[in-house]
């Protein structure tokens, strides 16, 4: 704790963990990620605000006789996605402690579950498309817009996971540890938006 490290040079579990311990405030990458998430979160806030704005224009909701959404499956799926927060958190903790291998396996576990979630969600969305389309009316439009943009965020998260799995398999560096931490924050954010999105969409049935 008595010296200023050249942190970007740290490679291998030991030095990386040492740099991580020595750092007194968050690294630049962490700030960048948090700010990006802040702007993305605002985007979701605007979309959800749009949902309720449209809802307050009318007496009938959902519009045009569309059935109210079913509650159980979406909630279960969301719970699955939220659960992946645990392996992500543990993965970061393992990496910080210098246990790169367990970090990698935990990340793989999280990725597998997240991918399954996306698959199931898309399946559910295709089912919905059979009963009503986004072109039907404003309800359908905002319903699918919210869902689609949420799915896009999950897909981006999976791409980050894949890249990290590839990188971490080749050992850890300070740079990769920061990337893993960023990925974890990103998934916390995606999990939070998943909850917000699903509660918004289930609102007519609640």
């Amino acid at each position, binding site marked *: 704790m008595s010296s200023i490290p050249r942190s*970007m040079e740290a490679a291998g579990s030991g030095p990386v963990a040492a740099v991580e311990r020595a750092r007194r*405030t968050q*690294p*630049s990458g962490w700030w960048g990620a948090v700010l990006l998430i802040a*702007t993305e979160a*605002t985007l979701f806030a605007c979309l959800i605000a*749009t949902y309720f704005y449209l809802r307050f224009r009318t007496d009938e909701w959902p519009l045009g006789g569309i059935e109210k959404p079913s509650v159980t499956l979406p909630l279960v799926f969301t719970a699955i996605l939220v659960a992946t927060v645990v392996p992500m958190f543990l993965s970061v903790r393992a990496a910080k402690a210098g246990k790169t291998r367990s970090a990698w396996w935990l990340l793989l576990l999280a990725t597998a579950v997240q991918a399954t979630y996306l698959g199931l969600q898309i399946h559910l969305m295709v089912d919905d498309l059979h009963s009503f389309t*986004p072109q039907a009316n404003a309800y359908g439009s905002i319903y699918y817009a919210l869902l689609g943009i949420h799915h896009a965020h999950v897909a981006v998260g999976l791409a980050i996971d894949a890249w990290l799995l590839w990188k971490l398999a080749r050992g850890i560096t300070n740079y990769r540890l920061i990337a893993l931490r960023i990925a974890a924050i990103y998934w916390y954010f995606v999990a939070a938006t998943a909850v917000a999105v699903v509660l918004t969409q289930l609102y007519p049935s609640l």
Partner: protein
Amino acid sequence: MTVATPPAAKARLDRLERIWKESPGVLGWLTTVDHKRIGILYFFTSLFFFGAGGVEALAIRTQLIGPDESTLSPATFNEMMSTHGTTMIFFFVVPISLGAFGNYLIPLMIGARDMAFPRLNALSYWIFLCAGTFLYVGVFTGNAPSAGWFNYVPLASKAYSPGPGIDFYALSLLFVGISTTLGAINAIVTIFKLRAPGMSLNRMPLFCFAFLAVSFALIFALPALSTALILLELERLLGFHFFIPAAGGAPILWQNLFWIFGHPEVYIIILPAFGIATSIIPTFVRRKMVAWPLVALAEILVAFLGFGVWAHHMFAVGLASATTIYFAAASLIIVIPSGIQLFSWITTIVTGTPRFQTPLLWIIGFIVLFIMGGLSGVTFAAIPFDQQTTDTYYVVAHFHYVIFGAAVFPLLGGMYYWFPKVTGRMYHEGWGKASFWLTFIGTNVTFFPMHILGLDGMPRRNYTYGPEMGWTGLNLIETLGAYLLALGLLSVFVNLAVSLFKGEKAGNDPFGGDTLEWSTTSPPPPYNYAVIPKVSSPYAMWDTEDREEDARNLERGRKVLEQGHETAASTAVDAEWDEVLDMPSNSAWPPLVALAMTGVFAMVLLQQWFAAAIFVAVLLCTVAGFHLKEPEEA
């Protein structure tokens, strides 16, 4: 520091020079990650868009020179006025302030060697260039947007604007929004993390406070615009419904989303000007700013309150009274932070010993124009008055006083002020003063009569007016004023262009500046500072002992960081030295990522979904390539 460099110091400077050298020639500019070069690229690109927007403005004024003129057809007029607004706001003022001034000066002012994310910085620039080109491809192929810069639906919906003009508008703004968001994030992290050790929040230059405020405002304002644009394009390209009442949509939804972005945007435009003013005034007045903490606060506060006033653009749409009150109250209170700054500037000038050189003249012009624009702005918070004057030339007068007079004058003053720093040469003082007076008079002759016309009932965006309305004389004066204004602006750029080659050598610090950038050479070396500077006040350059210590540190090799592209990172609040970072060097990936993105946007515009998907794949590959090389492998 350049005087009689001791050999030990000389060796270190040479070594730094070698480490930070970039590729020569065009390739160097294409792959550069140096914040100064990127700043210069931003500067010339946004200046080009300024020229385009200016030509459009002159065309508009020429059409309005007399009643029932037919220089422009109504269709062309509407395209001109829509493109003029869009260009000036999104492709000139914001990029030149954040991209050129912010980029070039923030790292210098805080004693850093680059932005926090240098390659991301390059990417922001290339995206900006591609997005601007994207819009102007539309303009030059006869597909300019024509629903005004705030693009109200349903006029902008497919039914009333069937051509691709609106798509060019919406997609190019989404596109440039990515660039601006990345730029804002970069600026914030740079200011948070790369401040020279010792520069705690209460020792940061006011310029940086202004840019911090702007960047935060952008991060929270742009998503509202992006949402609006995404919804609009989903509606236009894929047949979704958000804005058409028959399908359950709401036209006012667009206005809400747009102005949640749009009003903060006004402050985003003007805050960099505040920052520049607070840099120029202390230098030429030879004293520190009066009420420094209040000014720092005011800069942040303007950005914050800007989010609570959006509906004052919508007082005529028939909102509930209870709703309007929220926004009227906030629109009044937002005057206070501006008042604080205004009186701080004025008091500083009065109590100091000002030298009225060109940069200070522009700032004084700015103060006068800003008071005018501010006072006319307050009147919009009086709802009944707003409901009369909104959408008339009174509004046009008001916002040109604010976003031309108050926002662009300091940019021009700043060009003069930092010209010697960037180029190493002095501008011509006599021509500088003349160009100021020409522009100042031109601005007032152009925009002042608009107040009167507006109060007399002339609506904005009319492509013509009848002779019986009695608006002929003032319109003629305005148009002549616009030509004068164009001449004034031209003389600024001619002065600077000639001085670039013929100006006297400037030296490090021709004005006795107050902030760190004046301590390094003109132009600064690629690594900015050989020694990470010592900072113990917001006026670092006036702390002579600190600067002498820097020179001694160079000789002794303390705080030099010469093992690679290195810079110091500090804690966010009190700026204690926390780590040494390795910064990336030249990269060809940023322009490639931007090109791939252009492909995606172009294919979406053409509704070639399969090709768009291919470009998304290409984009992913380029992003992966971007991250291929890690810093420790550099």
